[in-house]
């Protein structure tokens, strides 16, 4: 099965070329430029290479003025005639070819779809072009940064994760959607939420409450928290995917809605907040479109254990890994200078345990929706 030959566009398929948007044309041009570079180098007898902007921690900078993570200018050479890079070089070009095919046919596919589209056995060997999905994903990101094109522009999307309810009406791919009438499941946030695909029609909400997980989100939706407080309720199923982050950023910037985050009291929760606020290291090149420097952190706070008089049995002991991670986060430049955040992290470390949002259920099933969040919103008591 896996050994099937890569699908090559037949003449009939090529005839069915879709109409290209201006963005598509630009992307196509840079894709062809990638191939032209190879031809140029090879015909001059030089060993071909591609310059891929580095996506490591060493190549990201925190911009204190913009308050987001930005990618530096350092680039890695990816050479064909280098033993450790030959395979990735080939994969990079394969991904480029796959994206061109998608754009020309006007179709989009998931990263998993692209993986299957490109996976085949290299002729004359037993080697696969891609061994698994994990082999393919970083290469797709490399192509994005190399061409300075967004994933959407390459006609590739990530799997849908995250949901939304609230007083907002929008148009998604031509269908009008009323997010206040989405039942218990909510509106599944697609991975591509760019202006061409999604337009806001009307919004009455006052703010956005972003929670970490599906379970907490359901609690809020069932208690009709968003109706009572006139807000939009979203979750990102852990680390929010690009679609969710982009949508939050668009709503924040275009509709002027403040964003509050309710996350677990553990290093992972802090990091999610940091990603929403400043952008992630891995996708630093997208920070400008996705980061929301104005996001606020409601909780859970380390001090809430005493404030809410929680039962000791709901605490979870910090693992060695957690402690290591917390210390790392405390040293991030965007946390380093914030005394309240340093205090918060130190408090968690001295507590020696972490708390999940669900721990509040031990007080009362609806404690979090009826007391915890409303109180903090009323007091405007949050971390920045």
């Amino acid at each position, binding site marked *: 099965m896996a050994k099937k030959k890569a699908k090559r566009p037949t003449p009939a398929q090529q005839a069915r070329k879709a109409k290209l948007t201006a963005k598509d044309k630009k992307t196509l041009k840079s894709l062809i430029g990638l*191939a*032209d570079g190879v031809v140029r180098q090879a015909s001059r007898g030089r060993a*071909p290479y591609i310059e891929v902007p580095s996506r490591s921690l060493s190549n990201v900078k925190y911009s204190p003025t913009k308050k987001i993570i930005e990618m530096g200018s350092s680039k890695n050479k990816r050479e*064909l*005639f280098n033993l450790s890079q*030959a395979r990735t070089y080939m994969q990079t070009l394969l991904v480029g*070819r796959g994206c061109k*095919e998608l754009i020309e046919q006007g179709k989009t596919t998931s990263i998993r779809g692209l993986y299957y589209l490109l996976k085949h056995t290299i002729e004359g060997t037993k080697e696969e072009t891609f061994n698994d999905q994990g082999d393919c994903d970083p290469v797709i990101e490399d192509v994005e940064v190399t061409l300075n094109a967004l994933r959407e522009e390459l006609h590739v999307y990530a799997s849908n994760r995250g949901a939304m309810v609230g007083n907002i009406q929008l148009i998604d791919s031509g269908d009008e959607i009323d997010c206040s009438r989405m039942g218990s499941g909510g509106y599944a946030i697609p991975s591509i939420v760019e202006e061409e695909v999604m337009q806001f029609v009307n919004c009455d909400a006052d703010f956005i409450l972003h929670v970490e997980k599906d379970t907490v989100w359901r609690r809020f939706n069932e208690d009709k928290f968003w109706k009572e407080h006139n807000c939009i309720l979203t979750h990102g199923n852990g680390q929010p995917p690009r679609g969710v982050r982009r949508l939050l950023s668009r709503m924040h910037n275009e509709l002027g809605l403040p964003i509050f985050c309710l996350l677990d009291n553990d290093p992972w929760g802090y990091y999610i907040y940091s990603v929403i606020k400043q952008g992630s290291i891995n996708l630093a090149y997208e920070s400008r479109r996705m980061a929301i420097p104005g996001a606020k952190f409601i909780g859970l706070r380390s001090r809430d254990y005493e404030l809410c008089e929680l039962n000791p049995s709901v605490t979870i002991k910090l693992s060695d890994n957690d402690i290591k991670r917390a210390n790392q986060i405390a040293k991030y430049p965007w946390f380093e200078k914030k005394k309240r955040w340093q205090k918060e992290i130190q408090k968690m470390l001295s507590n020696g345990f972490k708390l999940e949002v669900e721990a509040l259920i031990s007080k009362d099933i609806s404690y979090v929706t009826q007391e915890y969040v409303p109180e903090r919103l009323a007091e405007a008591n949050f971390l920045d």
Partner: protein
Amino acid sequence: MAAKQRSISVSEFFAKNRHLLGFDNPRKALLTTVKEAVDNSLDACEEAGIGPEIWVTITQTEPDRYKVSIQDNGPGILKKQIPLIFGKLLYGSKFHRLRMSRGQQGIGISAAGMYGMLTTGKPVKIVSKLSIRKPAHYYELQIDTKTNNPQILNNRGDGLDIPAGEKGRVIMEKKKIEWESHYPVPEFPELAEGQEPPDPVEVRSGTRVTLEIEAKYQRGRGSVDEYLEMTAIANPHVTLHYLDPEGTLHTYSRSTDQLPPEAKEIKPHPYGVELGRLVTMLKEMKEGTITQFLTSSFSRVSPAVARRICEAADVSTRSGVKKISRDDADKIYKAIQKTKIKAPSTDCIAPIGEELLLKGLHQVVPGEFYVAATRPPSVYRGNPFQIECALAYGGQNAAQKVSKELLDRLIDETDARTLRQFLMNTFDGLGADSAEKIMKAGEFGSRQSPSKLKQEEIDRLHDCMKNVNVSDGQSMQILRYANRVPLQFKMRDCAITQTVMKMNWRSYGLSQSRGNLPSGPVRVMVHLASVWVPFTSESKEAIAHYDEIQKEIRLGLQTVGRKLGMFLRRRQQVKKEGERRNVFVRYLGEVAQAVSDLNGVERDDIYNHLTRVAKRVTKEADTKLDDRGNKVTEGNYGDNVLIIPDNPEDGLTEQVNNTTPQKKLF
């Protein structure tokens, strides 16, 4: 009690203690017999300056009895000497002189004759011919064990003279006397049609000895086959014709016509003489002064040195030898040890030489890489000696080349109780691990007996032996020689084996667990040449542990080891480069296709461009520097290395930097 005391003859002593001479069991007896006869033949031929050609024939006469005939083309033996040489123990030309030769004591062949007489009652038959026109002498001999004297049995104690030519041939035929009268005609497959093969050349002189002994014929480790093969390696100037009991003729042809240089006889060196021997030598000296005695009986003793010895011993330089008392002798002995005396001259040793070692090894042992090294001569206890090492790497294991028929026969012959034992004992270099692997692959039980295998099981075993990769677990094989004579027993006791095991072979690219032989398809040959080889026992099976000898062995092994290391690293490098190129070439097609799909350039065009770049890039890598910073190229192995290209069918052997005339080493 006192009445019962009487003297014991040497023959009686050895008849009862035959294990001391290497006749402990029937299998070893066969080997020892062949060995003693072949060694004598080789010594005789070389001394006479004749390129040795030796026929060895073994035939089975009864279940436990074999007839062994060995003939050479040597100078022959004078008629009156024949009975003494073959019918008297401790009679020979080699014991009293200090000269490099195979035999030392003069026990060997007469002991074999005695063993035959004891076990089968058959006499030793000797044919000896001095020249082409003179008659050949024929004797049937026995040893009188009581008196250690020969008894001639045929022709009423006179022996038989067989005239030369046709008349003699008829007599021989009638009396059933065996004699190879002509050299075998080499086969010329490329002989043109109609062209007559050349006439066989008559054997001009030589000696043939035939014995019938109780013996057991078995192949494998410690066998006659192994001995002859090893002999062929160390003696590339010898041609051997060996007809085994199954009627198969093995021929090892000489790879050089150049005889080893004649070894010179030397006088003993003072350091190598013990007190007892010194006293005897003093007694032998009829007249003269002590100074005269010292200067004339020993090497490296000048009048000045003699004076110093005398001064140290507090003996007058002019005192006559007759007047030297036992105490004085003791003083002189001690004085000798204290006095500084020049090391003995070493020109009395004739090494095989690096070039001939390579040739001999290559002729007999299959492999990919050969290297040889001859150490400069050195001295132990006043005896000069010289070490030579050679090494062959690669080639198939004996277990992998064995034919189905041979395996059938081997299984038939073996007396090993389990299959595992059979594998380990029969095939050289097959360790316990490899045997285990083969048995696992064939799903044989651990206690299976080889004699009970069914035919289909033997077939399965054969398949497994062919296919299982045993070279990992294969341990190094050591070929030991003393004065060109192979040593086949007491491997663990021998100074050579001990030295090999103590060395660190890991730095030369072989794997080795502590205190063991290294593993890998390697054969190491070590040759000790000396005027007096220090064996651990009379059966001449292991070399004694002298520090000086072990040091020289180590240095020699290090020389060949270093070159092996270079070869292995180089091969690794080549392999890596090949893999590198493969990796690139593998991806080029994909890259070219992707590029062509992206911008519409012709796929083949870009592919060709890329291949050209790939070639250039990896070529650059070919001339990378090795770990010493030298450019890695062929031919920096130094002298005396032989590399066989991958494809042996080409038959092309390239000789790298092989210095043709042997280097002068002393």
